[in-house]
């Protein structure tokens, strides 16, 4: 029975939702200190290629590759961030967009290492490696009534869900900490924040680098979930897509990023039956959205509304009874 529900296709879509959530959080973090960066696709690519190359050529364990991908993206994020963060608003967006294109063009042209636009195939697949591990210790998916494929995708999904829970927990905590306060203050009014004695450059580079680390991390996961990457995966449209996840869902709160990534990953899949029209509908939804709710679907007031309603659930029952008595 379990075997029927766990369709590998659904599991794969769910896995992409998880990866997209990480990407959306990465841009949410940079936006939370008031900076619009379009370099996330570039950092994602750096993470993906770093991890893929390390695991293919040096046969490193996948987990080492993924962590290396995140670290390399973070280091490049700091190096790019220090000069780039002198720019503000749309200038920063253009500069980071340029950075992303440079990264992609390096992937295309550095053929001896990246194999150019053909891309890298044969990247160790996270699920298959894990399956091999489980088989080595004498466990077979058949024992719980699953096919190999189902087991692989289920395992990958569980790992990604776990990673997401940890990340969301961490960044929710950070938002309430000194660092989160500093980000918020810089976003609201940079001059005021500076007058209060915040080291603006430090916090801006910190949030930029955190975004880069997350994007690199997500990119590395992407490489090991798909087992194939090419420069086209990390082009300009990817950067825009990631930005839209966060802006559509609501860039003020972390749940906005989660919602945006989930909804916008599911939407084209759900609309698959009308094939070529689906991206038109996708586009129309985005246009309507920007016209009627520019702050995104979920913002602080929506969250407050939910909190209030959940809290007053018990109270409402009580209230209706009084009404009946009247």
């Amino acid at each position, binding site marked *: 029975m379990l075997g029927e529900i766990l369709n590998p296709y659904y599991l794969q879509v769910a896995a992409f939702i998880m990866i997209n959530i990480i990407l959306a959080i990465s841009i949410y973090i940079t936006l939370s200190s008031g900076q619009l960066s379009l370099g996330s696709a570039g950092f994602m690519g750096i993470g993906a290629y770093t991890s893929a190359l390390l695991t293919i050529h040096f046969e490193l364990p996948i987990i080492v590759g993924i962590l290396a991908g995140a670290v390399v993206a973070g280091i490049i994020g700091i190096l790019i961030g220090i000069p780039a963060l002198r720019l503000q608003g749309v200038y920063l967006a253009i500069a980071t967009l340029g950075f992303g294109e440079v990264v992609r063009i390096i992937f295309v042209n550095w053929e001896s290492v990246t194999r150019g636009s053909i891309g890298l195939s044969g990247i160790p697949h996270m699920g298959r490696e894990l399956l091999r591990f489980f088989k080595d210790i004498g466990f077979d998916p058949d024992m719980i009534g699953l096919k190999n494929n189902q087991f692989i995708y289920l395992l990958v999904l569980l790992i990604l869900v776990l990673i997401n829970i940890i990340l969301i927990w961490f960044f929710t905590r950070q938002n309430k900490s000194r660092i989160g*306060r500093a980000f*918020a*203050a810089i976003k609201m009014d940079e001059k005021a924040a*500076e*007058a209060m*004695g915040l080291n603006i450059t430090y916090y801006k580079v910190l949030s930029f680098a955190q975004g880069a680390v997350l994007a690199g991390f997500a990119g590395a996961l992407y490489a090991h979930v798909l087992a194939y990457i090419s420069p086209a995966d990390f082009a300009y449209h990817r950067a825009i897509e990631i930005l839209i996840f966060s802006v559509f869902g609501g860039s003020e709160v972390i749940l906005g990023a989660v919602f945006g990534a989930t909804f916008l990953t599911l939407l084209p899949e759900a609309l698959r039956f009308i094939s070529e029209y689906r991206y038109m509908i996708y586009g129309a939804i985005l246009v309507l959205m920007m016209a009627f709710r520019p702050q995104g679907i979920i913002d602080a007031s929506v969250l407050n509304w939910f909190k209030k309603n959940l809290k007053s659930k018990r109270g409402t029952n009580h209230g209706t009874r009084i009404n009946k008595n009247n």
Partner: protein
Amino acid sequence: MLKVSGIETYYGKIQALKGISLEVNEGQVVTLLGANGAGKTTTMKTISGLLKPKLGKVEFLGEDITGLRPDQLLRKGIALVPEGRAILSSMSVYENLEMGAYHRKDNEIKKDIESVMAQFPILEERREQLGGTLSGGQQQMLAIARALLSKPKLLLLDEPSMGLAPLIVADIFKLIREIKNNGTTVLLVEQNAKQALKVADYGYVMETGKVIFNGEAKDLLEDPRIVEAYLGKRASTVESVRS
């Protein structure tokens, strides 16, 4: 306490300050006066590290602080209330005050916030209200209160009375006097020359990037050249009729 010698600051190729020198002694309120475009705010920005001078030196307690960042200055005891009351508009009054003590790591912060609240009853009333929903005068109070929470030795106030109603301006100046009585040194940039000279001990008058007069505040208040140029004869007759 603060000694500025011969600073020259440029915006690109345009020279805004042509060698400003001034001194602030401990426990004093010193005011910097002048018309629009005289370079008052530029001087303040240069002292507080928002702009770097091409020439000249800023010293604080005998230490060269030229070109240090605002956060470094705050650690040395210089707090700035910037022009236009920079308030964090979507944070509550209380959170704004907490941000003022951001760099402090002692355990007195909560106690100090409460004592500042006691000094500013209007902020106490509105502690949960968002900064952006306060009136102009209240925002200015909040900006000053926030700067005080960093426990500065020297407070830099940039045009605190700008755009406020006369009654509120009077409150602000009363507050500056209180701050002085509590032992904090103040450098005050103002356009409201008469009020500023009344609270100040010493004054500097600037014009097109230079200091043109300086002296004891009470002397400046009576100096005919200053009365004519900055206080206005009419204003003084109105004042004498009132009193």
